[in-house]
């Protein structure tokens, strides 16, 4: 009997189905995957090191550049962590606006995921539809922060500016558009036989394994583990909102697709509530010496100008100790561990990147399966290489 031979195939790093610069070394026995080794680090830019060399306020724009599909979630996580470290309470209006923006970000990220994942599986037209709805969310971003992608709109202690006057109108238009879009997506994919054949019982992970592999977000909930940080450890006033945790059952790629669509619906529910109950008030906390005073005060008030100057030039001194703040980002548990050391720069900024830790389970998902399913597995994890490599 001849010796069994395997072939090693190099997938990526320049391959559209790997969603960036991910390289996977796949060892194949015929069409079966014997071993898969993800190789990462092509996009490593040392963001954590960079943030450690900057003042707390000035490290904020680095966060947008990690998960560039969900910038507001990253801003929110970092700001909440610094606010926890400095013991800053933000006004209620800020909390509600942040929740509204974070949920818009979740929809935006899921839409990009849906478009690219479907393209991987051959449904070419989906990307055009999802980007149509995504565009209206980017319009809201642009109205808020002046930027379409790297917003840096959520700042330490509040927001960069007050919400734009037509915020309500713009967001309502998003809700309407996404609601219409969801009908299209479901018609195109949910009962599509090709899509079901490509995703059902593919990249399966059980609940026990998902916990052992430290998975979070849709990867964990898709296996039926009811865990959502917005419910378990509410932050930024999520306890005031009424929504359900979407759950999967089988832990396969199809369940994760259904789950993400459900999450979009729940996000729309939260955004609706946030718009209905948006309180009045200041858009930034009043904590002299830590939070930047509002720009209009800086121009006309002496004290505000002095504080502005001091914060920009020498920053504020943080106490010695570590805080950890985790938020439920579109991809999973996004955590910021910030260690202060008594100086004006953080000693350590650790980002717990959900994509990185979810991607670690890729060999477990694909080994023993067919080679064509590797693409589906990578897609269903929902990775952003900017966040994986940082």
């Amino acid at each position, binding site marked *: 009997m001849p010796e069994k031979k395997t072939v090693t195939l190099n997938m990526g790093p320049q391959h559209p189905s790997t969603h960036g610069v991910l390289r996977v070394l796949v060892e194949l026995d015929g069409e079966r995957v014997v071993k898969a080794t993800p190789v*990462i*680090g092509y996009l*490593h830019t*040392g963001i*954590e*090191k*960079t943030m*450690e*060399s900057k003042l707390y306020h000035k490290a904020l724009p680095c966060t947008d550049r990690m998960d560039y599909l969900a910038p507001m979630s990253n801003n929110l996580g970092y700001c909440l962590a610094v606010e*926890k*470290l400095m*013991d800053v309470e933000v006004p209620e209006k800020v909390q509600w606006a942040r929740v509204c923006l974070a949920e818009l970000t979740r929809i935006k990220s899921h839409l990009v995921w849906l478009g690219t994942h479907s393209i991987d599986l051959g449904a070419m037209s989906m990307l055009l539809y999802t980007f149509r709805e995504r565009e209206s969310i980017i319009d809201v971003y642009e109205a808020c922060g002046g930027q379409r992608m790297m917003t840096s709109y959520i700042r330490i202690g509040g927001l960069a500016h007050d919400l734009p006057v037509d915020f309500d109108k713009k967001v309502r238009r998003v809700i309407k558009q996404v609601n219409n879009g969801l009908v299209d997506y479901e018609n195109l994919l949910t009962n599509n036989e090709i899509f079901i054949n490509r995703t059902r019982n593919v990249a399966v992970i059980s609940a026990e394994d998902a*916990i*052992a*592999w*430290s*998975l979070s977000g849709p990867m964990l909930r898709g296996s039926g*583990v009811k*865990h959502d940080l917005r419910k*378990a*450890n509410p932050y930024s006033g999520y306890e005031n909102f009424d929504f359900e945790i979407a759950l999967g059952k089988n832990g396969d790629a199809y369940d994760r697709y259904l789950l993400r669509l459900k999450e979009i619906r729940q996000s729309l529910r939260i955004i609706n509530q946030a718009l209905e109950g948006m309180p009045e008030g200041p858009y930034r906390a009043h904590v002299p010496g830590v939070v930047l005073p509002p720009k209009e005060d800086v121009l006309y008030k002496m004290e505000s100008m002095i504080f502005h100057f001091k914060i920009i030039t020498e920053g504020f001194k943080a106490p*010695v*100790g*570590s*805080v*950890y703040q*985790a938020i439920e980002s579109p991809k999973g*548990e996004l*955590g910021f*561990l910030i*260690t202060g*050391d008594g100086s004006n720069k953080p*000693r*350590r900024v*650790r980002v*717990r990147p959900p994509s*990185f*830790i979810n*991607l*670690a*389970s890729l060999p*477990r998902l694909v080994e023993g399966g067919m080679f064509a399913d590797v693409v589906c597995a990578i897609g269903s994890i929902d990775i952003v290489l900017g966040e994986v*490599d*940082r």
Partner: protein
Amino acid sequence: MEEQLRGFIKARFGEAMVREEEFRGEQSFHIKPEALIEICQAFLDDNDLQVRFLSDITAVDWLGHERADEGRFEVIYNLYSLTHAYRFFVKVHLPADHPRIASLCDLWPGADWMEREVYDLFGIEFEGHPCLEKILTPDDLVGHPLRKDFPLTYEQPQFTWNKDQPPEVVR
């Protein structure tokens, strides 16, 4: 949950505990490095605490700070109980000279990449790790970038106009 956890650790690992810390409502237990595996195994086996989720592993370099007296490197294990929705931290201190600690890969397969990242960026060795290799930085990079004595530099990119000059490193 907090009381229960403290009682659990004190009763079974009282000797291994160095100190307890509470900061901004977050509980940390500083323990001796050699007791790590035993404590984590006990968490996994205990059915009341339900600490099954290893959220993250990271490290802090305290070089040049008074906290470095305990040991230059502080390795932080971020543990979470899904049933109780409770998060706490187990911290160990390691010396500057050849820092090493036991790997948790046997208990949690998810610890694999987290430990590789700490090894790559801090140079902390995890004993018993199945494949302790660099993960983020290029293979030819010497040193561990997140150590505080690793300089924050940038290198002049090489273009046609300066290709004959030696690369200049700006510190």
